[in-house]
């Protein structure tokens, strides 16, 4: 971009601008700083919603608070799904008719291997109306409903990490894929339309050559997306330009 100023040549001015910025805005940022991780999680949720929107789905917020007119975003998987908002993505196909999915957050999903194992990815795209409840003495002493979605009703999921990437951080994600969508591990997953974004890991930190190599390797083996450096390249999951580089999976 056209600029005549330089941090080297105009350093006094540069420092003055920094001081002015801090004087005006430092306290606002400091007051909200405890929300950094949650706000980053929300931003990635919006990226996932935009993926469906750009794929031709109509997305509408559901289960919002009618009194306060608010979208309720819960950060804990112990929050009841009936008290949380989510987006409903809908699209009508000439060949397949209406297809609809719920884009939810912090929803408990049952393992595909063991009915007694549950985990909560940050975001889950599930079939409409698939949240179930059980009462079991092992969960909340059987006094409260234990809400979950069966793995068979899960279309895709995503996790977010507000960290610099490391090989371990990226590779650990494969464990979640194995537990929730083993058909991707043995490449027997459905290829039916509509296509979903493959299980995705959103990482705030930028990666190096090695991280990029792991990313490419996982994408080719398991149809996983690893988005690195989201502060530099926010639109990786939804931009039209990047669609060809994404791993996508079919609806089951």
């Amino acid at each position, binding site marked *: 971009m056209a600029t005549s100023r330089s941090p080297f040549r105009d350093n006094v001015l540069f420092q003055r601008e920094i001081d002015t910025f801090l004087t005006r805005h430092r306290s606002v*940022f400091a007051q909200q700083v405890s929300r950094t991780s949650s706000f980053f999680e929300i931003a990635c949720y919006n990226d996932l919603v935009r993926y469906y929107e750009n794929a031709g789905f109509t997305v509408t917020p559901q289960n919002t608070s009618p009194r306060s007119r608010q979208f309720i975003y819960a950060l804990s998987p112990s929050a009841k799904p009936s008290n949380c908002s989510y987006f409903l993505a809908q699209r009508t196909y000439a060949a397949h008719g209406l297809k609809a999915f719920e884009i939810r957050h912090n929803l408990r999903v049952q393992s595909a291997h063991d009915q007694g194992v549950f985990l909560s990815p940050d975001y889950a795209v599930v079939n409409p109306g698939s949240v179930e409840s059980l009462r079991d003495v092992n969960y909340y002493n059987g006094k409260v409903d234990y809400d979950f979605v069966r793995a068979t009703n899960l279309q895709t999921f995503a996790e977010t990490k507000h960290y610099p990437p490391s090989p371990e951080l990226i590779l650990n994600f494969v464990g979640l894929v194995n537990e929730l969508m083993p058909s991707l591990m043995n490449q027997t997953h459905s290829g039916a339309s509509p296509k979903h974004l493959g299980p995705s890991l959103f990482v705030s930190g930028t990666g190096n050559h090695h991280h990029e190599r792991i990313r490419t390797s996982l994408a080719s083996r398991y149809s996983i997306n690893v988005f690195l450096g989201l502060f530099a390249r926010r639109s990786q999951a939804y931009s039209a330009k990047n669609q060809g580089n994404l791993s996508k999976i079919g609806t089951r």
Partner: protein
Amino acid sequence: MLAPFLVGLPRYLVELMQGEYEYKCRRLAHWKERSRSVRLRPYLEREVVIQQVLALGIYYRHVIAPLTSAGNLVHRLRSEHELGLQVAGKTVTDEIYFSLEAGRIQFQRFARAFGLEDSFFAISDLNQVVMGLVRMEERRTSGDI
């Protein structure tokens, strides 16, 4: 250079940011000491300028970028559905949203005036930061920007 950015931040974040900054400053000092590059030397001599940019980058990555990243969803809910946002039981009020946006815009405006885009601050690798600054300065000197 980093100290003014840390005012009012919680201790865990201060330690994290300070650790990153000190590590980079040590590596920068080492680089300056050992570099024989005629191209890089004049810039490495201006260590303080590079430290300013490093401090800005650390503040951007740890504070500004994550706090303002949720703005897209807030904007979507407000403009398309006339809805507010509640996160973990706390409302993200208009006041909070607009104050953070104002901060982000001012940061972006002054940084761009010096040729520094958001994507530049997202880089955490010291070598890439220094080489990015050098290339920018060289383009400026040759009249490309």
